[in-house]
């Protein structure tokens, strides 16, 4: 790892951890900070939003890498994804511990009856195999299957935005913003896949077209 990459990774790590540190400071009312009138809701919302933001950032890495050609950006992707998983776990634990207070029958009722919880819970469960297989070892061992497995992130991100959308009371302008961003990220990938498919096709065509020319130009 080059030194500049190490510096960048350290900075990103600190930036990812900062919202959690801030939340702890607010929870303990350190430095005049507090969680406001509804602390449980504040923790739930902050962790949910930070997790969602990091998930979106994770999905930004590949399009930015392709657009800029800075391939080393890919090394940040795992860290962003794992931090997203971390915040969403705290989000879930806040709900379990502070909202339903470990009432497991309530949990089952919520997952069964309340679609936004069903969707959010599903998204978090789908993140587990991705977090587990995020190591270099698993990446190597699974090979192409790893790539396929980690395409689950598209399903997860969609479910996460739906979860956000369904729990707002009325004003869906914020979740709409995330839906638009997600649609943008998907279209960037679709455009890329089309372009590579076209290039592949085009290179076959070009070879065919160039073959006679090549033969003619080829001097003895």
């Amino acid at each position, binding site marked *: 790892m080059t030194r500049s990459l190490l510096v960048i990774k350290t900075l990103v790590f600190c930036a990812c951890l900062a919202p959690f540190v801030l939340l702890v400071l607010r929870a303990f009312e350190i430095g005049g900070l507090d*969680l*406001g*009138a509804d*602390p449980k809701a504040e923790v739930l919302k902050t962790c949910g939003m930070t997790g969602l933001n990091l998930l979106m950032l994770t999905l930004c890495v590949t399009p930015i890498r392709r657009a800029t050609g800075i391939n080393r950006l890919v090394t940040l992707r795992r860290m962003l994804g794992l931090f997203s998983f971390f915040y969403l776990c705290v989000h879930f634990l806040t709900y379990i511990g*502070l909202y339903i207070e470990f009432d497991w029958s309530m949990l089952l009722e919520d997952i069964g*009856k309340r*679609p936004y919880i069903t969707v959010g819970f599903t998204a978090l469960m789908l993140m587990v195999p991705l977090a587990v297989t995020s190591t270099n070892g698993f990446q190597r061992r699974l090979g192409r299957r790893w790539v396929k497995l980690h395409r689950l992130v598209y399903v997860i991100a969609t479910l996460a935005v739906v979860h956000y959308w369904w*729990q707002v009371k*009325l004003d869906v302008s914020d979740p709409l913003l995330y839906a638009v961003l997600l649609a943008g990220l998907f279209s960037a990938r679709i455009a890329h896949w089309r372009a590579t498919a076209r290039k592949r096709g085009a290179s076959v065509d070009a070879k065919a077209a160039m073959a006679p020319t090549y033969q003619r130009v080829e001097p003895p």
Partner: protein
Amino acid sequence: MSSRFDAGIKPSEITPESVFMSRRTVLAAAVACGLVPSAMTAAATIPADGAFPDLKTWPDSTTEKQASFKDITTYNNFYEFGTDKGDPAVNAHTLKTSPWSVEVTGQCGKPGTLTLEDILKPHALEERVYRHRCVEAWSMVIPWVGFPLADLLKRFEPASGAKYVQFFTLADKQQMPGVRYPVLQWPYREGLTIAEAMHPLTLATVGLYGKVLPNQNGAPLRIVIPWKYGFKGAKSVVRIHFTDRQPQTSWNMSAPSEYGFYSNVNPERPHPRWSQAKERRLGGGLLSGTIATKIFNGYGDQVAQLYQGLDLIQNY
């Protein structure tokens, strides 16, 4: 069906204003002679210094721990000033509460437009500590300042056909930035059956914590119905309308399956998206436990009779 919600008050039973006024004359004379303490001569006004003097104490106030003034005034749902809980406290300073007038329309003997001063003058203000339960499953204990709404409504002589009362909130884009966005149908409107509106717990509210109501809490005049979810209480009221039909209410218009006309606090009837069985009592901190929500927010002994024979799950 509407007759079920009759206030049980015949127009003939409502004190005619002439009698009402003559009583006031007698009282005034009695005060002048020193027979009655002057605090009884209800002559409420909005105090210039912001603090109400001589508030009556209401004996039935809850003794539960009150939410802080800060929490009550910085955590608000008042979409006319933005949809974030913190928005109203930041944006509501643009609301001009003086001069203020309220239009009274519909099926009543004395429609017209009253200034806030006219509205308050005959009434004695009291402090009432009520539980306030939001449909979002949080609650606060709030010391309101006000007087029974019934005392105000009687002055307009509701007709026998007036089975419902509708309340309208101001909707002025100049003063209320949130009104520019169509998140709800403006003006915000709410409604009660006449029996609910006339119930002695229903409070015409002008203050909290002994002070003039801050703008973000619905100044200068809001309605508080402690056994219903908070959104039923219209804020910054500019119109009161008596009608024979169940009136439109803003939240019901936008999401009829989620917010019914009654919206009584009911742990048995979950919101379609979340449970209403428990509530987060604000002021207790991050780790304080939630508390079980009570039917009619714990005011069932006083209000349950309003809903006899009514299926509260169907009529949510």
